[in-house]
Every structure is written in C-alpha cells, then in structure tokens.
C-alpha cells in the first residue's frame, strides 16, 4: 500500500517523509509569518502618526529586530525549504530526499530555535533590540542579556539550514531518475541547487559571526572592540559576507517558482532555459563579491567603494536576462490569468521595481543619500514581499491541487491576489518617498514632514495584515472542502509531478523511478 502512513502526533514527530516534512515547514513558516507580521503591525501602529503613542522606543527597537529576524529566518527561508521538500523529489523522480532522518531533524530544530528567540521577549531587559543586522558594539558590549539566547537561536537555525542544503544537493546529484540530466531539470530544482550551495557557503560564516560576538561578550576577546585592537567594521564585513548571499538565498527559489508557473499559463516553453540556469549561477557567484555595498558610509577606501559599486551594478545584467526571459515566455503565448499566474506576473513587475531601486542604491555617491533611510526599507521590502513571498504564494496556489488533491476557490484566490497587490504597494511604495524626504529607518517617532507617507504605509500595512488572514481562510476552506483536483490541474503544466503522478500525490511516490526521455 503506497498510501499507508502512520497517524497521530508521532506521525509528524518521527516522520522521514519528504511530503510530511514539506508540509510542516510550510505551516511553520506561515505561523512565523503571522507572528512577524503582528510585530510589523505594532511598528506601523506606532508610526501611523508622529509622536509616541503605543510603545517605548526600546520596545520599538525590539519589534523591528524581531520582525526582521523572524521574517528572514522563520518565514521566508523555511517556506522555501518547505517547497523544496515537497517538490524536488517529485520533480527529479526520486522516492524521497536523500537523507530523510536528517531532514526530520533539520525541521524539528526550528520550533525550538524560535521558541528560544521569542522567549527573549519575556526576559529581563527584553528581546534583542539592535536590528536584525545586529551590528557590534551595539549587540556585543551594549546588547541586552537576551543576546546570548539570540546567539544560540541563530546557531540552531544555521544548523537546520545547512542540513537542509546538504539534503538538497545530495538529492539532486544522486537521486535523479534515469534520463533526468542536469539540463533537463525543472528550473525550480536548479535554482534550489544553487541556493543550497550558497547556504553551505555562508551559513557557517553567520555562525562564525555570532560565535565571535559570544566570545567578545563573555570570554574576553575583542574581535569587534577597537579598545582591544579589534574593529567594529570587521563585524559588518563578516556579517554582509553572509548577508548579501542570504538575500539571494531568499529570492532564487522564487525565481524558480515563477519560471515554472509562467510557462504553464502561457502554454509555451520557458524562453531561454539554459540562459536562465547560467544567469542564476552568475547571480550566485556575483553575490559573493558585492557585500560591502551595504557599507558605503563606513569610510572604506575609494578603491573599495569603486569595486563594490561596479560589481554590484553588474548583477543587474543576469537579473535583467531573467526578467527578459520571463517576458519573452509570455510573448505570443496563450495566456490565462489564474491566481498562480497573477501572483507570478506581480512578482515579475514588482521585483523589477525592487531591482531598479537596487541599481540606484548600488551607485555609491547617491547611496550616501539613500543609505539607512526608508528608501532602503522600501527597496528590500519590494524584493522580499512581492518577491520572495509572492513567489511562495504563487507556488502554494499552483501546487496545492497536487499536494492535497483539492482545488482552491478561484474567486477567493483572485480576491486574495488583488488585496495583496493593492496593499503591498500602498504599504511599501510611500516608503520610497519618506526615504527620499530624509526619514531614517528604525526610528519610533518622526517629524511632521514624513507624516502623510507614514499614514499611507500604515493603512496599507493593516490591510496587508488582514489579507493574510483571508489567505489562511481561503487555504483552510480549500483543503477541507475544495473541489477535487485533476491529476493535471493546469492545462499547460509540465514536469513529472503533473505527468506521472495523480492528485493528490500518494504518500510514497516514485518507489520505482519513472522513465524520463
């Protein structure tokens, strides 16, 4: 019986099944998304008007810090791992991930890591309050006692991510069905393979950073303390050596998702498959030599500033190739606009806008004006919300029929899309303007001249918050009482999961490898 599976709580605790683990990752990331979102609501409520209304500045800083950490490490990254778990084995024709027990462990670390991190909110001195970038010495000498729990939490998340990445790499290299050559793999698998390499390269660097913090705090070292011969700027170099590739870790899998969905609803093959693969690889390689564009104001030598400026601008080339390829895929296709397609199109447009502000930020002499203002906040929310999160949302709508055997309600999906589209822009577009007008980021109170932009952003944010509840309801209704999905729900869908498997995909799939030609 291929569909036999254990029941009850132990099914989930002991499971080594990639589908169960994928589901747990996705639900976990959704819970984190709601918690991180609730913190964003606190931030936007405080910023709705000038003046301090709801929270103290110190608590405000805890909110911005925790919001960032939870969204990056708790919502976006695990959601991508969830998609990888569900899809990669099915897309390469493997029975499961290569290292299923490790897979179980890498998931189950996360709830503990985040319980630890969240518990710091209730500790003496409060949660970490130094921003998700935790620059030294604010986070070392001046950090609250809970910083040590933050360090342990980051270590645990890092271990989880590294194990997840190893699993993806081993699965892709060893478990492909006969005939599934590398250059036949779906683009989602490719982007995840490259992401996994990025993870393995940079998560240890993050672990190193927090370990150095720990020894600076408690064991008398002075890595980041000038008084002891160290250098606070070195912290930033190490942090961003992790942090910049991290940005691509969050977005590359979403590139893969839309590269699957756009061809399906254009009923046309992906334009420039191999150039997509090479562009992804070049973005990943370039991501290692641009880190200091986050640090133009620290007083680098001119030569350094020039190098990081030019290298950063180069990233626009492979990124442009990807965008042009998506547009060319739609060109002369036979387009329909179901929910996954709508989210993917919004992804392409809004991510491109985020890319534009990225090029602006790359230009060092103007970056001095944008740096650490709301313009940067607008930029990275454009690549993260309508980028990474719309990508995941599109994936959920697209593969839900395959995962659950149930269809969501198309009207609900479209309403969800339009609400998201309106509120995302209402929230984040005005932030460009408050940044250009000179509003620094991470401040709990501001001058009247920024008031209108902040009010709009807050209204948008509340709408966006409610929209997520609507999304949850749409999903739950679909899963419990959705119409039965077809095996190949989408006319233009391609790939083993649609062609060789029923909907819902049985608990065990491809116990004997499929034939790929």
């Amino acid at each position, binding site marked *: 019986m291929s569909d036999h599976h254990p029941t009850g709580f132990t099914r989930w605790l002991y499971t080594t099944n990639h589908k169960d683990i994928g589901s747990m990752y996705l639900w976990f990331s959704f819970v984190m998304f709601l918690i991180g979102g609730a913190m964003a609501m606190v931030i936007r409520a405080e910023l709705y008007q000038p003046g301090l209304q709801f929270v103290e*500045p110190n608590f405000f*800083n805890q909110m911005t810090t925790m919001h960032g950490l939870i969204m990056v490490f708790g919502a976006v990254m695990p959601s991508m791992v969830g998609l990888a778990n569900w899809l990669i084995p099915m897309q390469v024709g493997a029975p499961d991930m290569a290292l299923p027990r490790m897979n179980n462990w890498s998931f189950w670390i996360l709830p503990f890591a985040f319980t630890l991190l969240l518990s710091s909110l209730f500790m003496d*001195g409060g949660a970490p309050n*130094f*921003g998700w970038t935790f*620059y030294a*010495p604010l986070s070392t*000498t*001046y950090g*609250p006692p809970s910083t040590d729990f933050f360090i342990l939490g980051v270590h645990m998340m890092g271990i989880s991510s590294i194990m997840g990445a190893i699993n993806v790499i081993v699965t892709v290299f060893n478990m492909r069905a006969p005939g599934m050559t590398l250059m036949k793999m779906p683009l989602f698998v490719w982007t995840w393979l490259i992401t996994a390499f990025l993870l393995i390269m940079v998560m240890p660097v993050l672990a190193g950073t927090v370990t150095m913090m720990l020894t600076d705090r408690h064991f008398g070292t002075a890595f980041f303390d*000038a008084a002891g011969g160290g250098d*606070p*700027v070195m912290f930033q170099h190490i942090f961003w050596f992790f942090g910049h590739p991290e940005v691509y870790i969050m977005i590359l899998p979403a590139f893969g998702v839309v590269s699957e969905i756009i061809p399906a609803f*254009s*009923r046309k*093959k992906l*334009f*420039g*498959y191999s*150039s997509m693969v090479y562009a992804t690889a070049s973005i990943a390689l370039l991501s290692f030599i641009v880190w200091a564009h986050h640090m133009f*104001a*620290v*007083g680098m030598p*001119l030569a350094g*500033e*020039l190098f990081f*400026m030019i290298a950063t*601008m*180069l990233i*626009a*080339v492979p990124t442009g*190739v990807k965008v042009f*390829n998506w*547009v060319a895929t*739609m*060109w*002369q*296709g*036979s*387009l329909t606009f179901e929910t996954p397609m709508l989210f993917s*199109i919004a992804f392409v*447009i809004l991510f*491109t*806008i985020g890319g534009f502000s990225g090029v*602006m930020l790359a*230009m*060092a*002499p*103007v970056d*001095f*004006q944008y740096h*650490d*203002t709301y313009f940067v906040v607008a930029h990275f929310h454009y690549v993260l919300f309508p980028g990474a999160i719309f990508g995941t949302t599109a994936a959920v709508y697209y593969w839900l029929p395959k995962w659950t055997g149930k269809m969501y309600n198309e009207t609900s999906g479209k309403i969800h899309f339009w609400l998201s589209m309106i509120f995302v822009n209402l929230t984040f577009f005005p932030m460009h303007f408050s940044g250009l007008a*000179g509003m*620094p980021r*991470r*401040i*709990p109170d*501001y001058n009247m*001249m920024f008031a209108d932009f902040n009010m709009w952003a807050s209204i948008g944010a509340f709408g966006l918050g409610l929209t997520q509840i609507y999304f949850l309801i749409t999903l739950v209704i679909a899963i419990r009482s959705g119409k039965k999905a077809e095996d190949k729900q989408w006319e233009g869908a391609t790939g083993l999961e649609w062609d060789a498997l029923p909907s819902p995909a049985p608990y065990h799939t491809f116990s004997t490898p499929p034939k790929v030609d």
Partner: protein
Amino acid sequence: MAIRRKLIAGIASLLSVLLSGGVQAASDLNMRPGVTETSIGAFDLHMMVVWVMVAISVVVFGAMIYSFIFHRKSKNPTPATFSHSTSVEFVWTIIPIIILVYLTWPAVKLLVKMEDASESEMSIQVTGSQWKWHYKYLENDINFFSNLDRTLAVDDPNYLLEVDNMLVIPVDTKVRFLVTADDVIHSWWVPDLAVKKDAIPGFINETWTNIPAEHAGKIFRGQCTELCGKDHGFMPVVVKVLSKDDYKAWVATKNDERIAAEKAAAEAAAASWDMDKLMALGKTTYDAKCGMCHMPNGLGMPPTFPALKDSRIAKGPAEGHIDIVVNGKTGTSMAAYGAQLTDAEMAAVITYERNAWGNNTGDTVQPADIQAFKAGN
C-alpha cells in the same frame, strides 16, 4: 451667462490649485537637490537613474501589457513554439551593459570628488555618543554638545530636528569633518549637504562640505542614521551656516562665553551651596542629561540602565558616586560626565540623586568636593 462664467472661473481656479498642488507634491516626493556641489551632483545622478529606469520600465512593462492584451488565450488560442534565440539573448545582455557603463561613469567621477577631503580650510571633530553629538573645532578652542531640544511639540515644524546648540560653519570654506564615536556606531547625516558618514568608536572617518555663499544664514537639518540604541531617533544634526564675517563674530562670542563660563564656574565652585539650591539645579541637570537612561523617576530600565532609587552607589559613600559620574564606566553606556558638566552641576546632580525618590541620605555634595576629587584623580 453669469453662472457659466462663474463656473468656468471656479473650475479654472480649482485646476490651478490642483496643478500647483501637484507640482508641490511632486517636489515633496523627490529627493531634495541640497545646496552643495556634491549634493546637487548626487541629485542629478539620482534623476538620471530614475529616468533610465522609467525608460526601461516603459519597454519591459509595455511588452508585458501588450502580451496580456493580445496574447491572452481568447485572442491567441495557439501559442507560438519558439523557446530561445541566441541573437535576441545576446542583444539583451549587451544593452544593459551599455546602460550600466553610461550610469557608472558619472558616478565614478562624483565619488572621486566626494572622497577627496584634501585642502580643507578648517576641521571639526564630530563625536557621536548615546544620544548626542559633540562638536570640537580643531583650530579654535571651541567645543560643545548638541542635544535634542525636547521642548518642541509634535506639530512644531522642527519637532525632533532641533537642538540646544547647533553646529555653526562658514560659507565658502572647505570644512573637513572628522567623525568618530564614543560608544556604539552612529552616523552623521545632513541631507542638504549630501554628507553621511558613520561615526565608529575607535576609528576616525573623514568627510567634508563646502557651502556656497548664497546660503549664508540658512539652517540645515538631519538625523543620526545608524541604529544606536533606545534614542536613535532622538539625536538630530543641525548645521547653521554663516557668512565669513558672521562666523568670525560667532567664534569671538564663543570665546568670550567660554571665558565668562569658566569664571562663573570657578565662582560657583568656590561658593558653598545649600541643599535646596543643589536639589533645584540637580533636578534640571538630571532631567536633561541622565533621565533618558535612569528615567525621571529614578527607576531606570534594568538590567540595561540601573535604577538609582535605592542604588547601592547612590546611597553608599559619596566618593564612589562621584567616581562613576565623573569617570563613567567603560564598556557601558554610562559616559564620563567629568568634562561635560560644570563642577556645580556635577555636585548638584549627585546631591539630587542621593536625596530624590526616597534615597534621603541627607548628604550634600559641594562643587569643592568635585574639584578635590578631580584633583586627586
């Protein structure tokens, strides 16, 4: 007829209001060009990129929208089958490279200019600390702290952008700023001058500005732009620009003020103060300089900022209390106030802490005690 004319006039005035509102709004939406050569250079570069990006959007989003309309399934039931084209892919790799080169060239030129602080005519050391700026004029014997003016109401146009002492600089002079910090990283930003430099403890960064003569008398406002703890949002940067003559006069006044203040401080220190006078000055000093961490009610925000009510130090021997206020405590945000407060303020604030909030030690600390402590220090 009359009604129609009125209507037309009404519509016309409405339109003109809308139009001017629109123009006004458009300028509110954009970056400000600022007043220096570099800030205007940055603004021009900003506009150049904006227009390039708008042009690219028109092409890319235009193609997408064309597709949405003409290549939808109802219009185009059989999709084309092409899936690559080496020549097209080559073209759209080359064109972005050309655009980038076009953007990079002016950026490089501007950057080289911005980073050249040589041949400056005067230097000011800017030191950030939680949560104020300290300005030290290296060529003159002038230095002062610049704290947020906390008296302004939310609807004041300068709310959070006003300080007790502004930085004053002359026009038409290349002024070099040496930026550093005492505790955590801060960042000193004045948008209209396009000067933003991180203030890093233990390191000194260099930057500069040169403001054209026509801006004499103007005041430029900015804020700290690197998260530096609780009151990061409350440490503005305010720069006042004076004509060269006014600046000379200002330097002279500052010198006189300093001499007068030194004399007054010496007199105050020589006098013996009674409890009421110490408590009164102590409370003002405390609320202005210490309350943001130790809180006006003395309860602090433990464990980051200790309570002074019932504190072992505030109720213990005066010596220890004087020591921590004069010398601060390295590695914590408790700064050394020895050079920031006069001996009288110091004595007053310590006396206040020893007797407020029910501490009731009954001691007074006299300015003379502070002098004696510093002498033996």
